[in-house]
């Protein structure tokens, strides 16, 4: 039998995960194509949970498709849309259908999404969601009632290593470790020196850290993210490098940059792996892996 994601995390190998975003609607063709493209090339595939507060086909649905197609899913769960009853119920359902990995997130604000007048929930935060998972694993629900048939999950969380100031994020990181997080998939990182500093801190804790690699597709996108996406900072030299690409070749340059970063992270053992987010360009994830020298895109 194939290794579980937890076993992979603890195997000492350089772990590679990627992610897919479910569709707006019920046409699953593109999502399934991306699953097929990624499932044998990475160790696990995240499915986003109404990313950026845009209502979509559910994360749990995407995870079931990954299972059906022979891949290893990571269920992204935000606290934005469900109260503690709904979150627990979804965890029971996920477990019953073979989903064994959960990434616990706070969730983006409703007002940045496409249902701006919807109610948000945030009854739990990411630390509390992690503890909810650990609590369910004791055979009890949050109401203190016995479960008939339990759950067991490999639970993870996120960190933003580029956030300013960083100290409050580090405190939250420590609380996530204490809450039972086994792995971290970081927000996008581009400044490897800064990330190495974060790793010096993170290494004190018993947790695996996968660096977030967001594919840059143009100098414009890199600038936009730096200016508008909290916790993302693309250094000027990378923006210049993208801008220097001949017309129509910025994407190729972005793939090179991502591959080069991954390769450095692996060769210098800076962290335990990477989480590749191609955001709509899942097609090129194999090219990024090839550029990183990771099994010519046929990892693992």
């Amino acid at each position: 039998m194939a290794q579980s994601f937890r076993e992979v995390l603890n195997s000492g190998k350089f772990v590679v995960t990627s992610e897919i975003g479910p569709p707006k609607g019920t046409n699953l063709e593109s999502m399934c194509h991306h699953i097929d493209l990624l499932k044998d090339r990475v160790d696990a595939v995240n499915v986003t949970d109404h990313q950026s507060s845009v209502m979509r086909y559910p994360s749990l649905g995407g995870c079931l498709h990954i299972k059906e197609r022979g891949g290893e899913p990571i269920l992204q769960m935000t606290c934005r849309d469900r109260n503690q009853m709904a979150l627990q119920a979804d965890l029971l359902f996920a477990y019953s259908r073979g989903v064994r990995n959960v990434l616990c997130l706070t969730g983006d604000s409703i007002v940045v999404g496409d249902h701006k007048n919807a109610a948000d929930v945030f009854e739990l935060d990411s630390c509390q969601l992690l503890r909810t998972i650990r609590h369910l694993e004791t055979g009890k629900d949050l109401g203190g009632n016995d479960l008939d048939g339990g759950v067991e999950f490999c639970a993870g969380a996120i960190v933003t290593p580029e956030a300013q100031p960083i100290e409050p994020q580090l405190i939250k990181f420590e609380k996530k470790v204490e809450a039972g997080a086994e792995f971290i998939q970081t927000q996008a990182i581009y400044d490897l020196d800064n990330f190495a500093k974060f790793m010096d801190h993170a290494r004190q804790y018993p947790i695996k850290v996968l660096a977030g690699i967001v594919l840059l597709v143009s100098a414009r996108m890199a600038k936009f993210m730096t200016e508008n996406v909290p916790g993302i900072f693309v250094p000027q030299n990378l923006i210049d490098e993208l801008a220097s690409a001949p017309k129509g070749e910025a994407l190729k340059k972005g793939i090179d940059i991502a591959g080069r970063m991954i390769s450095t992270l692996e060769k210098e053992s800076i962290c335990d792996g990477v989480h590749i987010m191609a955001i709509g360009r899942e097609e090129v994830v194999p090219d990024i892996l090839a550029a990183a020298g990771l099994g010519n895109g046929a990892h693992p």
Partner: protein
Amino acid sequence: MKSITKQKPMEEITQGLSGLDRVYIVGCGTCATMTRTGGREEVLEMKERLQGLDKIVTGWTVLPTACDEMTEAAVGQSNGALRDANCILCMSCALGVQRLAWSVNKPVIPALDTLFLGLEETPGDFHEVCAQCGHCVLGYTAGICPITACHKHLLNGPCGGTNNGKCEIDKNRDCAWTLIYNRLKEQGRLDLMKMYHPVKDAQVLPRPRITRVV
């Protein structure tokens, strides 16, 4: 603490008054005066506007504090102008609207939307400071309420949306958890931020919330 209000669009107010042509206007001398939504000036302005819409304004008053028990006396049988009206247009917060609706057997139409309970930080600048959650955590958070000051009312530290001390929904708004962090650090009490806070009890008092002082 003040009840912060905003005037409804005139269209909605006139819709509320449809079929009711004789209107008595009630303002409030406390919060709605301070927020300039239901003080003397606004009541008189409303009177003009309603008259311009062919309504008959039988009278008006600005109650000292529309939500308190004096309201009942002020709108009693001796108030002839009110007797002549077939409805009240209330320019106070929802507390005053409800106090009036208990006291007078006539339709009470709200002219304002009640937004939040807030403090005036600088003149004209009102901030929500308490969500009345029923279980105060201010002792752990350096006197800054994460339930109201954090957009996601998070209890265990900032989300990843914070940047340079600002909130993900608005670059001009402070991140509550950065403020809490800074103040706790200044006080040498960062251990409080490292403390885990369990899920809040959402049913401290089941709604509708009622308490009795014995």
